[in-house]
């Protein structure tokens, strides 16, 4: 009985001693890491508190087990209280949040690339497939096959570069029309050909090299309202949903009927006036986007397609032109697009 009572007193002391030491250790802890070490030391599998279950004679006195469990619970409580104190205290290491980040070089895709990808993306949504056709081309694909005979006035306007008698640097992307017809043989055709084009002309609104995108759609029962639909979709997607297009009669050798497509001016909103004076950006409220038309039956025939069965439309517009027309860019000179000055290139 005596021994039992001594043991009973001893276990109280042992527990009390651990409790005190734990409190002391805990008060010395300042970091989460130290706290975790402390938890292992006392509450780990081999920790001091768990060891008590082995060293004290639990069977002799049921109060012993209860006392150890109390110690365990209160220690756990203190640890978690301390953890929340530690996690919520002010950081020791502060830094100047206004300091600039480490500079990293800004890379860019050229404005023309961005415009081409946007154009391609819009037409891809409509199911057009991107193609690439020669930029140096024979007279047949470039002119004669497009219904522009050898003696036609369009030939001697001196706007085309020649590398041989009948080999030109294309001044338009329409050569892709015949090439695509020959490739596909039997419609439907729904392509967009984007490429470099060259014109023997240089001033603030022309560069000897520029880019065009050529759309061609041929199938059974294609009519003018389809042309209007596609042009309208492009104009709204590229320039903004609030813009409108209109068709005006025009003449091109390779389309019949032919149209000039205009878009209402984004600056004066199609009124032609800004504060009672004429808009400097447009002709009476409208801007010329580019030409288009229903593919001429001779061109279809030249491409091996029967114009009695199939019809289609085509358009060939300038990438730089639509890019410059996008409001807000404000480039004074189209040739700026061809500068290699990084101070320009890095802006976009």
């Amino acid at each position, binding site marked *: 009985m005596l021994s039992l009572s001594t043991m009973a007193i001893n276990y109280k002391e042992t527990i009390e001693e651990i409790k005190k030491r734990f409190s002391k250790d805990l008060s010395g802890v300042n970091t989460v890491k130290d706290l975790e070490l402390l938890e292992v030391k006392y509450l780990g599998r081999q920790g001091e508190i768990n060891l008590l279950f082995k060293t004290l004679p639990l069977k002799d006195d049921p109060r012993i087990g209860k006392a150890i469990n109390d110690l365990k619970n209160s220690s756990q409580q203190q640890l978690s209280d301390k953890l929340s104190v530690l996690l919520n205290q002010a950081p020791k290491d502060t830094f100047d949040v206004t300091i600039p980040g480490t500079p990293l070089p800004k890379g860019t895709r050229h404005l023309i690339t961005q415009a081409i990808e946007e154009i391609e993306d819009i037409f891809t949504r409509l199911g057009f497939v991107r193609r690439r056709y020669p930029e140096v081309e024979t007279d047949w694909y470039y002119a004669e096959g497009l219904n522009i005979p050898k003696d036609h006035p369009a030939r001697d306007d001196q706007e085309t570069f020649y590398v041989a008698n009948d080999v030109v640097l294309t001044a338009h992307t329409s050569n892709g029309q015949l090439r695509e017809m020959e490739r596909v043989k039997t419609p439907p055709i729904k392509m967009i050909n984007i490429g470099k084009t060259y014109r023997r002309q240089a001033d603030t609104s022309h560069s000897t*090299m520029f880019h065009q995108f050529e759309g061609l759609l041929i199938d059974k029962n294609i009519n003018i309202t389809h042309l209007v639909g596609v042009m309208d979709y492009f104009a709204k997607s590229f320039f903004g949903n609030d813009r409108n297009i209109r068709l005006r009669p025009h003449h091109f050798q390779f389309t019949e*009927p032919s149209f000039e497509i205009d878009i209402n001016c984004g600056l004066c909103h199609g009124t032609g006036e800004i504060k009672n004076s004429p808009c400097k950006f447009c002709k*009476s409220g409208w801007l010329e986007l580019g030409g288009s038309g229903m593919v001429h039956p001779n061109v279809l025939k030249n491409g091996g397609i029967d114009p009695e069965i199939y019809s289609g439309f085509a358009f060939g517009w300038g990438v730089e032109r639509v890019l410059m027309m996008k409001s807000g860019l404000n480039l004074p000179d189209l040739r700026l697009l061809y500068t290699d000055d990084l101070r320009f290139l890095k802006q976009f």
Partner: protein
Amino acid sequence: MNIKITDKALRYFLETPLTPEELAHDISLCGPTFDRVSKVDGDYLYEIEVITNRIDTASAQGIARDSAAILNQMGIKSKLLHDPYLEKINLYPNLPKTFHFEILDNSLVPRFTAVSLENVSIQDSPKDTQSLLSLSGERPINNAVDITNELTLLYGLPGHIFDLDKLAAQKLTIRESKNGEEVVTLDNQNNKLKGGDLVIEDGAGRLVDLCGVMGGSVAEVDQHTKNILLIFPVYQPSKIRRTSLYLQKRTLASQIYEKQPDTELCLPVLMNAIKLFGERTGSRVSSAVYDSNPLPSKAKEILLDINWANNLIGVQISSKTAVSILESLGFSVKNKGQNQIICTVPSWRRYDIDIKEDLVEEIARVYGYSKLPPTLPCVNLPPETKNKLLDTESKIKNLLSSQGFNEVYNNSLISLDLIEKTLLKEASHLKLNNALSKDYEYLRTTLVPSMLQNIKNNQGKTEEPFNLYELSNVYLSVGEKLPQENSMLVIGTTASFRLAKGHLALLFEHLNLKEYKFKSSTSCPIYFVAENTAMINSNSSTIGFIGSIKPAILHKLGITSDPIVVEIDTQKLADSILENYIYKPISDFPDVVEQITINTNERVGDIIEKIRSVDKLIKDVSYLDSFEKNHSFKITFSSPDKNLTQSEVNDVKKTVKTLFN
């Protein structure tokens, strides 16, 4: 071609309730475009863009005819007045001949009308005429000359007057000029002719007219003129165009003649001219009218199926509406039943209306393009495989820009100077036959020369290092009619070789190019320093080069840094890229990473290759740094099926070391 006409001139032919602004707006949507309307002293001036194949609208009466058709279709009651084609023709057959024309080649002069006038009194034109001419951009001269100019504006058919007394008119020959012949024109310029120009020679052997372009000064009408020879001809258009272009005389007359005006206008306009000469100069007709019409053409007939037309337009326009549109434009229409009509083309549309599609244009535009609803077509396209080249180009641009590289667009045309400075051969370049300037004369065969220029141009302007790239076609002459067009990538950087190579490796990783090697180049393009250039191989083909540029080239171009240039064939690169990713199982066992330093004369790339091939347990070798002949590497050991022991790792390391003893 742009013309200017006044509102008064237009309303001489057109009766309409619209104001000038309303008129301009409404007509522009369906016919000729009115670029501008401006209010001028007591009148309005229209600036009108004439569509190239519609020379019949290059005049007040032509615009009026189109306008009347368009406005009536819009429901605005309008009327064509003073229609020249209804003019009464009097050929004065009882009057004598006072001149004689001989036309050597009828095909060059499809129509020629002439008459002489006597008792002419030259003075200034009335105010109204002077004002009409000035506003339209023509200079008033005198009451006689002004009549032909005014008629050009009103009817779109130029004419000419000679002082009959100054001509040896008993024999006027219309012929082609001979090379070297000269003619002094009314602008007092002496023109040396190339031959093949249309001219009129008089009985004294003098050239008195440069046909269709400008009159000769020999028979100029002046204040003493009493007798006049008046002509209204139509010439072969290409002749007139050629002459006016090479002599740089782009007169209004030549611009009209080169587009072939209606031969049927000659007599009506001549009648109007006679009337005006009588009123303004007091003259009388002194000869019978001369009219040469050697090849009268039969009116064209075109069969049109209205249903077919509606299918092409995309809306249903009733047969009645279609017919009324065509008739209002001057076509005569016969029903052939079953929605089919036969349209007879009016003389003034003879050259622009050829096929049924042309009729569709007439119906649709006058009906109103604005009434056509936008419709997206539904097309059943066959499936399409990805275009690897275009896809790779786009990825390269995205990746390089995210790695801090800036894209530039250079002209495909370069100068001989640049070709020579970069040690290239002129002969391998395609040369323009008609270059605009020496700076843009040859098509590029490589993108490197332009890139070097870009580096030079940015030197001192932008903080170094800078990184530029361009993707573009080069044009290689391959002995066929057309050059080969190859898509190329060039990168130019003033950063170090290692950094450039690192960027390139990252690009390849992102593109999923798995098999590639940088090898010492045995042959490389001439502008690279061979010793400092690696060729980039993938699947045993060379896809490009990376290296430095010959000092001689840098010196000639004024480049002070030693840039690294990468040149890659984009098609070959695209072909080497794996379509899909391949999953490699991740080992369940931890990697062991060890450092090793090797002392050798061998090159780092060769050392790495050797280490890699020592043992299967070596998963990766990466380079750390070098000090003289000592090179440090980090080797990653790994086994897919067990935990590696230190002794196994040490064994492999030992084998590695022995390779370099």
